[in-house]
């Protein structure tokens, strides 16, 4: 870590309150399918501008994943997503470590920086939106 980087980090930490709320925010629709190999899933992602609903094309997108129930303990290597045929669509092949609920982190770099998090449940045979709370035993 050079001294300059450290100074920048400290400056950012001490810096002025964020006034720039009017930044482009992204919204994402993610669908995933098991790819045939265990714990590997093919995901298609549709990125749109959260306010104007225009598709966001030409963005560098990497997809990471973390398990909400075991935070920071799985370090899945982020994969770069390839742009699809339609503007704003991307594909990525994810390799996970376990079945269960995963929070997919869609990291946008490139023209704009943002991160969208979507939680999905990955089962051996299907992928579904995650349940709101862990199922409880009901009597």
């Amino acid at each position, binding site marked *: 870590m050079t001294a300059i980087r450290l100074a920048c980090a400290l400056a950012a930490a001490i810096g002025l309150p964020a006034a720039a709320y009017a930044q482009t925010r992204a919204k994402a629709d993610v669908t995933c399918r098991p790819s045939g190999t265990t714990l590997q899933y093919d995901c298609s992602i549709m990125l749109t501008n959260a306010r104007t609903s225009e598709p966001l094309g030409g963005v560098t997108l990497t997809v990471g994943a973390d398990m909400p129930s075991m935070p920071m303990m799985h370090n899945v290597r982020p994969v770069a997503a390839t742009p699809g045929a339609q503007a704003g669509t991307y594909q990525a092949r994810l390799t996970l470590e*376990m*079945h*269960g609920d995963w929070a997919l982190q869609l990291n946008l770099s490139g023209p704009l920086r943002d991160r969208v998090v979507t939680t999905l*449940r990955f*089962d*051996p045979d299907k992928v579904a939106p995650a349940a709101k*709370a*862990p*199922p*409880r*035993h*009901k*009597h």
Partner: protein
Amino acid sequence: MVDFVQNTLDGVMTGSSYGLLALGFTLIFGVMRRLNLSYGPSIMIGAYLGTLVYVQLSAGPLVVIAVTLLGAVLAGLYVERLCFAPMAAGAGVASMVSSFAIWMQLEQAAVLALPRHTYPFPPLATGAPLNLGPFLLRVDHLIMLTGALALSACVHLLIYRSHFGLGLRAIINNPVAAHLVGINVRAAIVRAFALASAVGGVAGYLVLAVDQQVTPMFGMWATIKGLIAMMIGGLGSIPGAILGGLLLGVIEAHSQWYFGPHIRDLFAYLALFACLALRPGGLLGEALHEPFERGA
């Protein structure tokens, strides 16, 4: 009024299974003065074996219960060998933390073996609920209640009327004196562990048969419920375990009725916290006074 009684009845029936879980916990605690936090997961291993024979071999309920029992006992003995036997006398906290670590191990082993989120369990009874005046009683709940009461009675007889039980009570009272009198403390502890796991296995079977499914969350759930019930009723006290279980069941039934399932769990933990803060010994137990020696 009808609602109140109905809720209380429901609470008593679910509480009976909590009482069984607490019973297993308290047996281990009474005899070893240590808390086994892998209790729920070891029952879950048994349950997973049970569901395996149910799904793969279409076994009947009796076979499933036998396999569940056996699995729970084997898992319990594994925990005993790894977390409790090798620890020096008095390293109670180290064994507790060790059992927590083995919990993680057992849970991952179960999820690796059976990765789906839920597996079916044979039901206790199908059919319409009974009507007793204005109250509704589910048949499977009734079977769970009678099963729990029967098992508690058996355990009570075992502890208070048998030779083995006499030895256990001697160890609970004073392990050193029991050893001096010639009781094989090691062997008795292993048998107590097996007994506790077997009781847990039955309790687990009853609960899962009512739910008709088993999920990986069951391990933690069973441990927490058993722990809360045991703490409320009193550590190391067998009647306390049953009482604590019934009380917990009733508290939960009422809170769920008025506030919903999330708040119900909140109340369960609140009951535990309040019990610890105000009366650590629980209702029928004695508070621990001697310093809990660390594993140094």
